[in-house]
């Protein structure tokens, strides 16, 4: 495998959460029309709808802190599965919330996009 999927997964997550925290309306180009996001129990398809959903979330400031991260190559084509847990600090809340998120990344033209994105909050 020519691409180091571990490094890729880390780079991707850093970029993704950084962008999310700075301006989540700009995340659209990481998704495609057939991308799926499962957000808690609802499901959204397509980059535009996904970004609309993310933008509509009722907080202004948000910060992600990655706690753990693991990755596996998911097919011979270079797909990568990424599993992340972390903390979400919303607005000026004292207590962060924990979340887990699973990305399925697909290589495309020297870069990657998100095919599946499964997000789940975990209280506690």
């Amino acid at each position: 495998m020519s691409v180091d999927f571990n490094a890729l997964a880390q780079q991707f997550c850093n970029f993704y959460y950084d962008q999310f925290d700075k301006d989540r309306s700009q995340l659209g180009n990481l998704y495609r029309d057939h991308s799926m996001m499962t957000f808690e129990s609802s499901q959204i398809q397509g980059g535009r709808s996904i970004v609309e959903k993310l933008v509509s979330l009722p907080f202004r400031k948000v910060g992600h802190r990655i706690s753990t991260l693991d990755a596996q190559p998911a097919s011979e084509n270079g797909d990568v599965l990424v599993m992340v847990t972390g903390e979400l600090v919303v607005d000026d809340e004292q207590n962060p919330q924990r979340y887990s998120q699973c990305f399925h990344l697909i290589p495309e033209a020297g870069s990657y996009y998100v095919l599946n994105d499964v997000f789940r909050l975990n209280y506690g």
Partner: protein
Amino acid sequence: MVGVQIQGWRNASQQDLVNFISRKSRIILQNVQSNMSSGVLTAFVRSMKDAEELEKCSGIRFAGDTLRIQIIDPVGISGDGRNQVTMNTISILRSFLRARYNASAKMLDLTNMVNDQTLVQNGLFSSSTTSSKFFPALMKLATQDKMDVESINLSDNRLDDNCRYLTELALSYPKLKNLAIGNNKISRLEFFNRLKNKFPYLRELIVSGNPLVANDNPTVLKGIVDIFPRLIIINGQQVRDEAKVNALFNFPVVTKSMFFETPDLSKVAANFIAAYLNMWDGQRHDLLQLYTPDSQFSYQVDTTRVGDAPSGPMSSANGSAGSSWSHYLSHSRNLKRVSGARSRMIRLFVGTDAIGKAFQALPKTQHSLQQNPNLYSMETISFPPLNGMQITLHGEFNETAHPEQPFPEHKSSNRGGRYNNQSRGGSRLEKRSFDRAFVVIPGPGGSFIVASDMLLVKPYSGNLAWSEEQRPVSAPSAVAVIPPVGLASNGVAVPGIGATSNMAPVALAPNQIFPPDVAAKLSPEQQQLVLKIMHETRLNLQFTIMLCEQSNWNYAAAGQNFANSKSQIPPQAYQ
């Protein structure tokens, strides 16, 4: 282009009719040909949509007569439009279908169509264009006419490896139970590979008389059987135990709180997970039959925690101090902590041997999915690159015993050594929460293959995040519309809409809120709903009523709509 036929127009000229249609329906008739003696006018319209729109105008009055309009060419079968649309291909196909359909047996007998006199005489197989359109048209009509079909016989039709009939068939009848395609020209397994996931309910298949199975090669037959998860009988021979198949696809757990992409996938996934966890607890080693030399497994531990567990021994907020993770840490593949290519590599288990060892090195467990499904949450999505599905599962387990065979101390795995220094006796068995992601693909004999498997173990955190009690809204798709509102400082979830419908009663009485004229228009139930939503969204009365009206006074829909349009709601809409 789709052909239409119009009668009952002869009191006026052809051009008058074309103008009239164009005015009435904004549909342009093209290639108009009329036969004055029969009174039949044929023409083409741009699309099926136009044709259907036009057909709805049938019965309209025109020049003292009544127009009768029908579509004569449902899929543009008669080609480029220069041909005179002679006969109603549609009625030929319809009568053919009717003759071949046995309603009581739910059986469509399409054997030897290529030699059917009527079909051949009408040129349905005269060119490759028409014959390629023939079968889709036939299927379309069968479904249009709501023919209930469980069995189809397509034997003796010269079907070859390139034939797309079965793909069309699957579109119309995905739940087909019995299929015969004997005495055709199918010679490659490829033909069946294209049908993966297409006939999930197929029970019996007849393929005899095709070059592919001429030698009764067991590998070939098995290859075919593998494509169809519920196939019991092939060429009259039983290949699976029907009771077992039914048991496997029949899941005892209520799946209400779970989200699934499609009902079919959901059943398969729920089944799979139930069986999997059962074996994980009972005979973990036997699970290895689901893994192949290419399968991958890795696990990681998230020892950080926020706040206090809802219950349980760990009250310290500073990481793993109150908990013991020694069974997991040596091979935890958290890329945030494990750097170095080699360290990372030895923590990714590839192939059954390595995965088996990793399984034995994890504590024995007890999950309670069957007894308490609400402690678990699951999402399933299809995984097109591998023709499979991705399942993510969240829940909890109790550790019941120390690992059968812990990893030996590994000097070169720098972190492993350190953590393994904790003696076995020092590690407590605890209740943990976990996330797990599987990529599952169809395996031989209707079984499954786990292609990817990622486990994350973390401190016990309960099921608050998805429990039904917290989220009593019934429709799963409407649940959790505004989830990340944050934990309040007391650790209780701040209710977003959709998160609580059995919350504390709203303090204000209706008459303090509703002006008399508004109150008069709303039923008591509607007033209650308005109050609740006002309280939860902080929208003002006017906007709340608007939201309720647009949501048909449905609480869940209101929550969804509110979440969806939140970014466009003006500030003055709030209280």
